[in-house]
């Protein structure tokens, strides 16, 4: 009885001892999707409906009851730290914001390893990136996570997901990501399969048959969205440290855990229904989430509620948000779902709809702005047309300029009068870095290093300053018309429409419609071979030779053999080499025999010959020369049969010449 009591007390004490809920906020996306803007400012400080993204994340964490946040800054870390110092986040009671600075982290994996080294996380923590917008309540998810953890200590992570249908046309989600396919156990909510790079061309998803053997039930979803909000146990950090090659949270960590079954660790999912959660990953999701915010899906994180030190904004009819001190011309038309920041002036007969305009902008008359995002202190002169463009701080657009859909103007770019900026162009004061290393996913660590490149690139790759202005003879050239048009990067122009702020152009939709209608849900295909891993499931198959084609092995063996023939290598050495090849390709000795015989016969065939008799002689002599080598591998009758089969195959396919002497050659061997 007394013992029981003691246990009870300790349990209570365990529950009572208050562990502050911690969160790790990665203030670096380790991606380049927001370039060229992110070369000058970190992504988390970019304004989303006039409020820096990190404020949404912090406000959400604060209201969700998180008490300690570690902001991990890497690219432009100084700017982030300065921003946080000035903001009111540091002054809140019961909410502490600490920064962890790093200069050499290139991935989320590096970041988490550093967090682990600092030894600041003591319990379960929430892992998000600084571009997450959400209003979900964490209570239920945390409770579920803790309960599961109590039952099964291997349940180390809970992933928040949300229902959202991908477009059947483009096979991408609203947020511009590729279609995501997950397999979830409907009872336990365990995540069994995760694939975010579904090959949309054929719409086929391949699952291992083992899944069906191991799990009584399995639901495959393609209508779930990954919110990139994870509730993790401290083991996650140590896992990252143990597996030092983990870089990407999803691509390496989640898939690694699911595929390799490390220590039996499990990942679970938590689905949210009424609340909102999404992550700004690319320009498309920037556009989508901005619109969601204006449509108030993120309530109470909406512009007219001052959730972070933002200026007061009033919501009027039809979703028009207006800041204070506006100078609005009487004839200007503010269309629905538009936000105009404080201190902005808008001239006569402007038409603005579905757009966000920052603070302190001055917009001339007869300007039409549709679906665009204009940040602070932008000057737009008379008669400009902006269509689904993104315009950063301090940009000057001179009169009559036209921005086609999908244009991104980075900081302080000046667009000359009457200049049409082509669709999907990205214009920046900084030139595009030439040696773009695709592996190097770092955002520019310092704006300083970017500037250094200017001279070297000026003449070669970039469009020179003057080309931005048509009136190249005017005095202003070089003084005001500044900026480089970045050449379209990796994906090519074809892919630009996927991720831009502009809606998918009509011709693309028509093109996609014309395609033979595929089933919306990806087909399921269960591989018969449960033992071997399906190829498309391994993300890192490039350095895994086990899955390589067996004919590579034959070629290697042949090369070895030929080297032996031409360079007179000793037979023993050949055997050793072939054996090592066999091990590295994971082949049976049977295959070796086959491969060697094949090379032998090929040698015979390639030796110059005129008649069939000569060929036969050649073959006989070669075989007798290398008889010992062959015999080394011909230990049993099975191998001899293999050899004969191989020979038969050769006769049928490659070397028709051998066909008549099949019997003769067979005799020689035995």
């Amino acid at each position, binding site marked *: 009885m007394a013992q029981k009591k003691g246990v009870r007390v300790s349990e209570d004490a365990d529950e009572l001892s208050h562990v502050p809920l911690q969160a790790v906020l990665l203030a670096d996306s380790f991606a380049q999707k927001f370039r060229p803007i992110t070369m000058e400012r970190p992504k988390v400080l970019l304004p989303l409906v006039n409020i820096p993204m990190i404020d949404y994340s912090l406000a959400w964490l604060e209201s969700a009851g998180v008490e300690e946040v570690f902001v991990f800054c890497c690219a432009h870390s100084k700017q982030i730290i300065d921003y946080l110092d000035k903001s009111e986040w540091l002054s809140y009671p019961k909410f502490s914001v600490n920064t962890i600075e790093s200069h050499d982290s290139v991935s989320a994996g590096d970041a988490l390893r550093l967090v682990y080294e600092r030894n600041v996380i003591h319990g379960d923590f929430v892992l998000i990136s600084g571009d997450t917008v959400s209003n979900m309540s964490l209570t239920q998810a945390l409770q579920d996570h803790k309960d599961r953890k109590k039952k099964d200590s291997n349940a180390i992570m809970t992933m928040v997901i949300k229902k959202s*249908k991908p477009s059947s046309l483009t096979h991408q989600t609203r947020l511009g990501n590729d279609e995501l396919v997950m397999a979830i156990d409907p009872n336990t909510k365990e995540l069994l399969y995760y694939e975010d790079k579904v090959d949309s061309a054929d719409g086929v998803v391949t699952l291992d048959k083992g899944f069906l053997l191991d799990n009584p039930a399995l639901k495959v979803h393609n*209508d779930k969205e990954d919110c990139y909000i994870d509730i993790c146990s401290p083991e996650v950090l140590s896992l990252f440290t143990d597996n030092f090659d983990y870089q990407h949270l999803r691509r390496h960590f989640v898939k690694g855990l699911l595929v390799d079954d490390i220590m039996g660790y499990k990942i679970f999912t938590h689905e949210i229904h*009424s609340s909102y959660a999404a992550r700004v990953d690319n320009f498309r999701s920037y556009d*989508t989430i901005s619109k969601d915010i204006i449509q108030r899906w993120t309530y109470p994180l909406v512009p007219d509620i001052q959730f972070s030190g933002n200026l007061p904004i009033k919501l009027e009819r039809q979703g028009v948000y207006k800041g*204070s001190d506006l100078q609005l011309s009487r004839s200007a038309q503010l269309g629905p779902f538009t936000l105009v920041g404080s201190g902005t002036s808008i001239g006569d007969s402007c038409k603005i709809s579905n757009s966000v305009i920052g603070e302190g902008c001055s917009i001339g008359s007869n300007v039409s702005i549709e679906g665009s995002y204009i940040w602070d202190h932008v000057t737009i002169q008379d008669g400009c047309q902006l269509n689904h463009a993104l315009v950063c701080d301090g940009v000057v657009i001179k009169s009559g300029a036209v921005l086609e859909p999908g244009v991104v103007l980075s900081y302080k770019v000046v667009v000359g009068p009457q200049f049409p900026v082509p669709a999907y162009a990205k214009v920046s004061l900084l030139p595009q870095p030439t040696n773009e290393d695709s592996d190097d996913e770092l955002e520019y660590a310092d704006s300083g290093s970017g500037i250094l490149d200017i001279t070297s690139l000026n003449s070669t790759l970039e469009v020179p300053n003057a080309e931005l202005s048509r009136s190249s003879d005017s005095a202003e050239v070089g003084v005001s018309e500044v900026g480089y048009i970045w050449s379209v990067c990796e994906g090519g122009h074809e892919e630009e429409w996927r991720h831009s702020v502009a809606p998918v152009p009509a011709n693309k939709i028509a093109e996609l419609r014309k395609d033979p209608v595929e089933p919306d849900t990806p087909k399921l295909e269960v591989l018969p071979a449960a033992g071997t891993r399906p190829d498309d499931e391994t993300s890192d198959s490039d350095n895994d030779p086990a899955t390589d084609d067996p004919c590579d092995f034959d070629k290697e063996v042949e090369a070895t053999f030929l080297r032996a023939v031409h360079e007179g290598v000793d037979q023993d050495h050949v055997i050793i080499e072939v054996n090592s090849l066999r091990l590295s390709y994971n082949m049976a000795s049977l295959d070796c025999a086959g491969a060697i015989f094949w090379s032998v016969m090929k040698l015979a065939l390639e030796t110059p010959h005129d008649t069939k008799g000569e060929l036969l002689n050649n073959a006989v002599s070669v075989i007798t020369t290398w008889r010992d080598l062959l015999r080394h591998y011909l230990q049993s009758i099975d191998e001899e049969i293999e050899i004969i089969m191989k020979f038969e195959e050769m006769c049928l396919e490659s070397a028709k010449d051998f066909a008549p002497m099949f019997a003769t050659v067979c005799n020689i061997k035995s």
Partner: protein
Amino acid sequence: MPDTQALVSEFVLKLKRRKVEGSHATARQTAELLRSVISQQRIPHTNQAAHLIEAVKVVGEQLISANPVELAVGNIVRRVLHIIREEDLSLATTAVGALGLSADSDDDDDAERDDRTLLSATAVAAASRSTLRAPALHTLLEDIPDSAAAPHTPSSGGESEGKSKSADKSGRSRKLKHDVIEAINELLEDIDTCHEQIAEQAVEHIHQNEVILTLGRSRTVMEFLCAAKEKKRSFRVFVAEGAPRYQGHVLAKELVARGLQTTVIADSAVFAMISRVNMVIVGAHAIMANGGVIAPVGLNMVALAAKRHAVPFVVVAGSHKLCPLYPHNPEVLLNDLRSPSELLDFGEFSDCMDYGIGSGAPLHVVNPAFDYVPPKLVSLFITDTGGHNPSYMYRLIADYYSADDFVVQRRTALGS
């Protein structure tokens, strides 16, 4: 005062995050916060009331701007300001009265405070003059012996007899603070007991075998109905569910648990049912100075239906919901547009909101929280002080608020 500052910012944060819901809870917490602000406020010897008012206004501004939609915050701030003014006035008049009249009139200080509206014009003028010229007041106080101050602080009354004039002054400042805090406690009590006060009047309004209609859930309405039930009245209640939050379901549960005959109907069935209804009883979010009501969404429809069928439309609300502002005031934000997720499930409709594909017109959802019911549709207000006509609201408001405080919010607009 780091203490109060922390308290204030914590409450501001709660308001901003919309974590305090309902005018009752908000009113209560605002009053409690202001009480602690006042009790921790250091007051100089001169011009104490002005200092207190300033301190409350500073906090009040922050609170009001944190959630301008929740009018109860502003109401309580204004009432506290009013309380300070009243207490100061009554103290001053006591002093003046003590000076002008003989010392024996001091005893009935309490009676005088209650009769403050009956003060003669001369006394008020003298009081205002004395507050304007603070040193004069002091000379006045110095002149009066302790007899004037003593009755106000009964505990220290005996001791202050032999003390110097500084102790006298601090006694008076403590006195003001003390009185104000006492009055705020009374206000808090009023807020707490308003449900019972209102419910007491239930039997006068609900008669045997009547059919009552209500929409959504209001605690005041619930107590009101239950009080009538307890008094052995037998009647039926129709509860309109109150989409999109469906608080009506909760109310129906509570009513059935208390043994009332309850029927749940859809909001859209209100007009069909109204002809069978004897009285509509609803709660309110706020009552404006003109007698208009800011009420949960859907009530304007109910009020119009009731008007069409000449059914009395009764609004029950505690006095903390009385707002001295008019609905046409620019600083009154009449509505709160909440998340569309209350209306429909995001996942089901996500394909209608794909801005990348949508041909220019993705799905829009509007979810307003409140309706404005104009005064002409309201038959009767029942507050904790009794039943009132909509046209009488301005008079009630004059009792609770002083005209100087109506503009707390305008300062906010200028300040920011």
